[in-house]
């Protein structure tokens, strides 16, 4: 009970230190300072526990070791060592103020060891972390066992005293210290909210291993302990038996010898009296010598004289075993004393006989019964047994055949049960038994009873009892069991630690290494290698993992290369889909460039002549990247081109393209586009914008400026979007620059955008460069700006230059109502105009036929029954001497060029009337084109004159 105080104190200090560690000023102290403070505090608790114990056999039972263990296990190795040393030194010097010297060395060393053990185990087994309370208790137990062994070892010269002390002190000290340490750890675990119940699921290999190892060790420990106990018990029995036998034999021999000698002396004296006087009264002799019987036997073995008249001359000594022994023995020796035994003549009577040979032959035999020789022997027996010890605390007692004590103290003559022995049946029956019996025997002096072991034997009518205190008999057993159990605890604990540490070093630490590396690999770092080579298995595991990783790496590289190749193909396809033959037309020029990003983007540009007088050009950007964007770009490009070639206005191209692109656009991609269609001869540019960057326009004598018009929604973004057309008159020398956001949104390492302003500035500084030089220069400028940053988006640029070198296409225009009657006027206008170009009459005539055909065609069909006009324009290029005729009407859209040419090889009767007019026109003119634009059927014809 007294031990509870230091146990509680230890717990309180643990609690205090734990809380202090949460407290900032303490927390901020350097590690070693904290450890010293904790060590000293626990050292004090250890010292206190040392004095505050329970007195036991001249030493003190205490829980001094708990504090260093708690400090070392919970708070850190240095703290444990420091408090262990303080506790140990305190114990060492405490003899000067009254502590016992008996366990001085053992206790001091054990306390220091406790600190060292806590420190070492924390480092070796628990990864410098606090162990669980179970381990804490085990460690405390092992520590106390060491303590006890130390007490044994340091007191070898007085081992029984040491043993007595250990026997009493072990349990309280083991329990006290274990409880103190266990509680301390539980408190900390509780405060740090650790779970006491096991989390279901996989557990660490170390834990599984610890548990099984512990189980095996405990089983091994129990088995060996039980075995030791059984073995020691057996040994004790044998040893005790030996001790008893020795004592017994000694007494037995003494009593027998004494008894034999005494009877033999009587026999000798009887013989002398008989030989000196053959007629002496044998009865008188028996009375004289205090014996019962005298027989004179002749050499034949026949009793010739006796105190008992009925046997004289009638009893043959050879007739019974008991008496025959005398006859036989005395033939070879002079005298013989027989053991106390049943007589031959009447076996119910016990008697002891001795005989000596008579000088004239035969022998004389004397015999007495127990009462008679006991009277003579008792004194001797008392002497023999009086100071005889069995072992150190045992004794020999003698009873007569009535089991009354033969002893010279107050128990003399008393029944054996008076000293505490309840006679067993065998004893009562007077039979000797080999068993060991137990009895609580009362000490005559102290009147205290103690548990004894005893054996008994009947000798010469006496019952000799050899008894020994049980404690003495079992001392050796207990001592050896204690030491072997202690040693086993120590050995198994050491074995446990050793195997655990070994396994940890060989397997767990290696597994951890492998695992850590695998973790890095999983996180994507394929360049690490596993290199655990401490044993063959791990070396092979490392090699396997490394080769797997390198294979994986190779596959990834191959896959990456394949993707790169595919992207490269996609890029090639994309590039090849873009027109590279830039028209070197006299009236305009187009030059464009697309620099694809590493991943294929969706940029594209396109241009195509719709007819001799119209050219379409556009730049577009598909959202997204990669192959899907490229595919979408191909689709968009094809759709737009198809629509453009059908001759519809540019805004309708985009409107219809949007509808088509919206169909089946499940990927949600969209396209921004800027598209323009230029009437080359007039310079009229019609354009539409579907969410695209504004182009940059430069007038012949002006500077570049953004052509900002209201843009429509992106293509493929939403169904039903309608695009507006915008119009612009281009004059020779005007330039339009189209681009995608890859230009303006080119980003440098500082995340700055190239931007519209920078673009405009560059363009104006380089406005006179030819397109073929301008675009590369601009790209170079962008690269310079971007620096090391990678190109994220395609960069597409297109420069459209309007030149129109065909000087005159100052069209001479005239409008006529579409009526046959006006034909002469029309032809008059044509002839007059051609005349002004100095055109030959022949050509004038041919051209007039052609124009008539076109005009009559319109007059007859274009407006149906209604009325309308025909718009004539005639232009002349002096250099090429080409005359351009433009004939437009606002009637029903109709392309006369679609009419198949009549077969002019047929004979007259098979010839059709139709188709001749347009045939003449086509054959007369150098080129005839038709377009339907802005609600007009436009026929454009060129004739060189």
């Amino acid at each position, binding site marked *: 009970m007294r031990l509870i105080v230091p146990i509680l104190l230890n717990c309180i200090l643990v609690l205090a230190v734990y809380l202090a560690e949460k407290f900032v000023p303490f927390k901020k102290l350097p590690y070693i300072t904290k450890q010293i403070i904790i060590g000293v505090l626990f050292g004090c608790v250890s010292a206190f526990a040392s004095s505050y114990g329970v007195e036991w056999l001249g030493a003190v039972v205490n829980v001094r070791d708990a504090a260093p263990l708690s400090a070392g296990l919970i708070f850190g190795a240095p703290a444990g060592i420091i408090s262990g040393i303080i506790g140990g030194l305190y114990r060492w010097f405490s003899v000067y103020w009254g502590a016992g010297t008996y366990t001085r060395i053992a206790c001091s060393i054990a306390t220091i060891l406790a600190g060292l053990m806590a420190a070492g185990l924390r480092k070796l087994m628990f990864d410098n972390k606090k162990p669980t309370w179970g381990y804490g208790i085990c460690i405390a137990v092992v520590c106390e066992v060491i303590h006890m062994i130390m007490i044994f070892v340091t007191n070898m010269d007085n081992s029984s005293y040491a043993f007595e002390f250990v026997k009493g002190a072990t349990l309280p000290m083991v329990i006290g210290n274990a409880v103190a340490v266990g509680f301390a750890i539980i408190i900390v675990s509780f405060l740090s909210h650790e779970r006491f119940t096991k989390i279901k699921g996989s557990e660490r290999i170390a834990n599984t291993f610890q548990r099984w190892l512990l189980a095996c060790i405990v089983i091994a420990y129990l088995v060996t302990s039980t075995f030791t106990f059984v073995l020691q018990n057996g040994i004790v029995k044998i040893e005790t038996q030996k001790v008893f036998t020795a004592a017994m034999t000694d007494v037995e021999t003494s009593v027998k010898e004494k008894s034999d000698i005494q009877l033999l002396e009587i026999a000798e004296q009887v013989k002398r009296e008989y030989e000196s006087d053959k007629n002496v009264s044998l009865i008188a002799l028996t009375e004289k010598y205090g014996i019962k019987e005298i027989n004179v036997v002749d050499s034949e073995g026949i009793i010739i004289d006796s105190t008992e008249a009925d046997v004289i001359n009638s009893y043959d000594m050879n007739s019974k075993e008991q008496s025959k022994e005398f006859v036989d023995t005395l033939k070879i020796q002079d005298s013989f004393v027989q053991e106390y035994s049943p007589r031959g003549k009447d076996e119910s009577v016990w008697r002891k006989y001795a005989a000596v040979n008579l000088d004239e032959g035969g022998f004389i035999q004397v015999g007495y019964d127990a009462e008679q020789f006991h009277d003579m022997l008792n004194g001797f027996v008392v002497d023999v047994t009086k100071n005889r010890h069995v072992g150190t605390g045992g004794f020999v007692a003698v009873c007569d055949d009535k089991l009354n004590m033969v002893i010279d103290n107050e128990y003399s003559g008393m029944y054996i049960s008076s000293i505490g022995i309840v006679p067993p049946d065998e004893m009562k029956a007077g039979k000797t038994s080999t068993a060991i019996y137990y009895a609580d025997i009362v000490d005559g002096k102290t009147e205290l009873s103690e548990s004894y072991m005893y054996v008994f034997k009947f000798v010469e009518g006496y019952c000799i009892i050899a008894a020994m205190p049980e404690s003495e008999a079992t001392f050796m057993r207990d001592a050896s069991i204690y030491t072997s159990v202690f040693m086993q605890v120590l050995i198994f604990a050491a074995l446990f630690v050793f195997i655990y540490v070994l396994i940890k070093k060989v397997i767990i630490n290696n597994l951890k290494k492998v695992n850590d590396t695998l973790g890095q690999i999983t996180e994507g770092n394929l360049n690490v290698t596993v290199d655990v080579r401490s044993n063959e298995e791990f070396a092979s595991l490392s090699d396997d993992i490394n080769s797997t990783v390198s294979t994986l790496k190779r596959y990834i590289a191959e896959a990456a290369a394949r993707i790169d190749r595919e992207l490269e193909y996609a890029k090639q396809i994309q590039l090849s889909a873009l027109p590279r033959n830039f028209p070197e037309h006299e009236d305009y020029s187009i030059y464009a460039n697309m620099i694809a990003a590493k991943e294929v983007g969706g940029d594209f540009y396109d241009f195509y002549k719709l007819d001799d007088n119209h050219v379409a050009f556009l730049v577009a950007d598909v959202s997204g990247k990669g192959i899907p964007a490229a595919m979408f770009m191909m689709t968009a490009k094809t759709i737009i081109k198809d629509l453009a070639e059908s001759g519809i206005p540019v805004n309708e191209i985009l409107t219809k393209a949007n509808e088509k692109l919206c169909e089946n656009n499940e990927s949600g991609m969209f396209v921004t586009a800027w598209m323009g269609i230029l009437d080359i001869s007039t310079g009229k540019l019609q354009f539409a914008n579907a969410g695209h960057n504004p182009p940059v326009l430069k007038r012949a004598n002006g500077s570049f400026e953004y052509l900002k018009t209201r843009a429509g929604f992106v293509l493929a973004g939403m169904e039903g979007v309608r695009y507006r057309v915008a119009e612009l008159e281009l004059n020779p020398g005007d330039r339009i620059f189209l681009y995608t956001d890859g230009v303006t949104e080119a980003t440098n390492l500082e995340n700055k955008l190239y931007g519209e302003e920078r673009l405009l500035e560059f363009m104006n500084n380089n406005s006179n460069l030819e397109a073929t030089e301008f675009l590369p220069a601009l790209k170079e400028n962008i690269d310079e700006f971007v620096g090391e940053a990678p190109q994220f988006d395609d960069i597409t640029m297109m420069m459209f230059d309007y030149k129109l070198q065909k000087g005159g296409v100052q069209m001479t225009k005239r409008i006529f109502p579409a009526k046959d009657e006006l034909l002469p006027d029309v032809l008059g206008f044509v002839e007059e105009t051609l005349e002004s170009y100095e055109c030959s009459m*022949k050509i004038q005539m041919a051209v007039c*036929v052609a124009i008539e055909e076109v005009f009559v065609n319109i007059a007859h069909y274009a407006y149906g029954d209604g009325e309308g006009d025909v718009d004539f324009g005639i232009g002349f290029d002096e250099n090429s001497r080409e005359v351009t005729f433009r004939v437009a009407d606002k009637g029903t859209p109709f392309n006369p060029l679609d009419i198949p040419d009549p077969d002019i090889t047929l004979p007259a009767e098979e010839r059709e*009337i139709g188709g*001749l007019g347009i045939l003449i026109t086509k054959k007369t003119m150098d080129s005839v084109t038709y377009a339907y634009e802005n609600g007009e059927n436009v026929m454009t014809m060129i004739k060189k004159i």
Partner: protein
Amino acid sequence: MTIEIKKNADETIIEVVGRLDTITAPALDKTINEDIEGVKNLVLDFNGLEYISSAGLRVLLGAQKKMQKIGSMKVKNICEEVMDVFEMTGFADILVIE
């Protein structure tokens, strides 16, 4: 355009002078189909014809088809410009040109 019809023993000769175009062609058509009913051998003298368009060609084709069934039709004195038109339309092959 002026049209003059001359008849001799074997043939009826139509002299066309001026331009045979959309406006004038119906007049020639009328002459051939109505005015010279019953004629077997028709000669078209284009000595004065300076211009012909597809409307004129149609009249010629119609005349050719008609005359082919009942007799013959000849075209003569064709100027270069008209001949060009005949050639480009294959009429040079279907008309009997002298």
